[in-house]
């Protein structure tokens, strides 16, 4: 028996089994150790899987040894292995950071449960990325969502509760829509396996239930990924959640939802179905642009940094969807690239904000006045990540925007190029708000002068900021994987 053969199952099962262990131990240090071990193992596994897929193509793993359409299949292809690396990597970086971060923000008694929820959330997200079964996606989606609701509600402010409740309602409606969509597809094809479904769907292409399923899945997933008009839950949720949670969610949760969308569009429906039958392309383009402008513009007028960057996330999701709407390999590459690059950038920003909150006692713009003097390194990190959000060369954000522009040029749509650049100006505006407060205002006097950043928080944050720069300079891994995944998806049908 070779262990390597079972990596797909272990990828999800190790964090999953870590969760009950943390509950049994009921001790926060031990729980932390277990969670850390599990997420680092998961990260190692995901890298191994990525290498395997890179070397020898898609891996299929039949759980319970039942052949695919009858049992549940795990399927690791270029796209999902890329997602696995992103999700487990982010978890591995954020988790060490959690320990000191939640010390301040979550009641002590709850700490071991915090780790339980964290690994469960990780499990869910990994499970979604790896599974080859439509209904299984729903089950793991719910694991991660339920864990997310709790994580958000653990925030210090009482508004965290309301934010969590709203997210619960929206999220459940979204999930139910997804179930309806899957149900309609199942009724038409008689199967739940994604690959099998895609093949059998060809026979009934364009029929009404299939179109309705497409609509339901799109709306349901859009709720989850906070596409522009359905984003209302996101700013509150990110603002009031504990900082470590905001960082992890911003970097992964919406990104995995995008993954689900891609999975259904390209592996189940096939692009001709999605873009041929309905005016999906135009609709997505419109929503993406609306999101880019409306959300970024709203971000400029926020007075709290966490909220500001939460709105910026909604705007950035616009870019991601924009790439999708081009319906071309280069557009899709840009989508997947931005998924990754924006994930690490936003993760870094929320981790930095966590440091700010710890030292300055809050993240409102008036609180961070003079941050440049008080916390020079942190402010510097913020500026770097801000540049990445804008898309300045030398940062990760530039790479994905560059590919997005290339994709737009390929379509010959000059006005889009103009719009993308214009919306980047909005990003300049909201990042400037931070810079102005941090560097051009006098420091406040009422800040605790002794508060320092513990190294367990500083190091992971620095690592992620460095990654933002690294992936802006060395693009082999990201662009390579993204274009491979994009080609794979476009060629799948």
């Amino acid at each position: 028996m070779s262990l390597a053969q079972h990596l797909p199952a272990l990828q999800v099962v190790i964090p999953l089994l870590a969760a009950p262990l943390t509950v049994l131990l009921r001790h926060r240090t031990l729980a932390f150790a277990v969670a850390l071990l599990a997420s680092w193992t998961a990260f190692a596994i995901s890298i191994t899987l990525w290498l395997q897929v890179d070397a020898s193509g898609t891996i299929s793993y039949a759980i319970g040894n039942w052949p695919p359409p009858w049992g549940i299949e795990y399927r690791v292809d270029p796209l999902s292995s890329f997602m696995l690396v992103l999700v487990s990597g982010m978890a591995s970086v954020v988790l060490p950071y959690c320990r000191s971060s939640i010390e301040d923000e979550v009641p002590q008694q709850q700490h071991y449960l915090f780790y339980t929820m964290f690994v469960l959330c990780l499990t869910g997200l990994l499970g979604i990325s790896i599974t080859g079964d439509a209904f299984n996606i729903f089950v793991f989606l719910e694991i991660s969502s339920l864990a997310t609701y709790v994580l958000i509600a653990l925030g210090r402010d009482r508004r965290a509760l309301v934010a969590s409740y709203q997210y619960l309602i929206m999220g459940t409606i979204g999930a139910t829509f997804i179930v309806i969509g899957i149900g309609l597809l199942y009724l038409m094809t008689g199967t739940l396996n994604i690959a099998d479904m895609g093949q059998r769907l060809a026979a009934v292409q364009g029929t009404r239930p299939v179109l309705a399923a497409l609509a339901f899945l799109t709306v349901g997933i859009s709720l989850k990924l906070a596409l522009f008009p359905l984003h209302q839950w996101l700013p509150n949720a990110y603002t009031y959640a504990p900082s470590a949670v905001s960082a992890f969610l911003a970097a992964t949760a919406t990104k995995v939802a995008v993954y689900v969308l891609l999975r259904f569009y390209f592996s189940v429906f096939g692009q001709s179905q999605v873009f041929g039958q309905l005016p999906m392309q135009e609709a997505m383009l419109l929503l993406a642009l609306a999101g880019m402008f409306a959300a970024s513009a709203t971000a400029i007028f926020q007075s709290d940094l966490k909220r500001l960057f939460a709105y910026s996330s909604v705007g950035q999701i616009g870019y991601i969807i924009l790439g999708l709407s081009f319906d071309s390999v280069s557009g899709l590459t840009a989508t997947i690239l931005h998924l990754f690059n924006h994930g690490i950038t936003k993760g870094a920003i929320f981790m930095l904000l966590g440091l700010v909150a710890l030292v300055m006692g809050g993240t409102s713009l008036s609180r961070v006045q003079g941050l440049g003097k008080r916390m020079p390194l942190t402010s510097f990190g913020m500026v770097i990540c801000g540049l990445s959000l804008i898309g300045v060369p030398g940062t990760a954000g530039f790479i994905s925007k560059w590919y997005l522009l290339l994709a737009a040029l390929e379509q010959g749509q000059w006005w889009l190029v103009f719009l993308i650049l214009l919306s980047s100006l909005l990003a300049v505006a909201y990042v400037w708000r931070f810079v102005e407060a941090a560097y051009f205002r006098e420091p406040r006097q009422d800040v605790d002068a002794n508060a320092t950043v513990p190294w367990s928080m500083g190091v992971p944050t620095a690592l992620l900021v460095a990654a933002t720069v690294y992936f802006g300079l060395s693009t082999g891994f990201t662009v390579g994987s993204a274009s491979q995944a994009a080609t794979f998806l476009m060629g799948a049908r």
Partner: protein
Amino acid sequence: MNTTMTLGGHFTYFVTIFLMVAGLFIVIARGNLIKKLIGLGIFQTSVYLLYIAPGKLVGGTAPILSDAFTVYSSPLPHVLILTAIVVGVATLALGLALTVRIREAYDSIEEDEILNMDAVPSRQEQA
């Protein structure tokens, strides 16, 4: 496929859809947090019917094998819905727990009252 379409053949779907619309309406329109959850429950329950109904075969029987029967209703939707029910009740429990916490923090379970309370920073108890 459209030629075989009859009203009777789709009756179960229409019932399902009515329940679904009603449930969704309650969720979106009502401001009371508990009422919203009840609506959510109805919305989810209607989906069960969407899955289960097509699995039924007239003249068939429950999918428990025995020598006396040869036609069975489809078992797979049943399995899926069992899972969905469990997920539904899990969500419900969490939602109610949140409601209780919200009520403790705000002394209200009306959505608009809560939102008002946060809009006015000087907290006015008992509007």
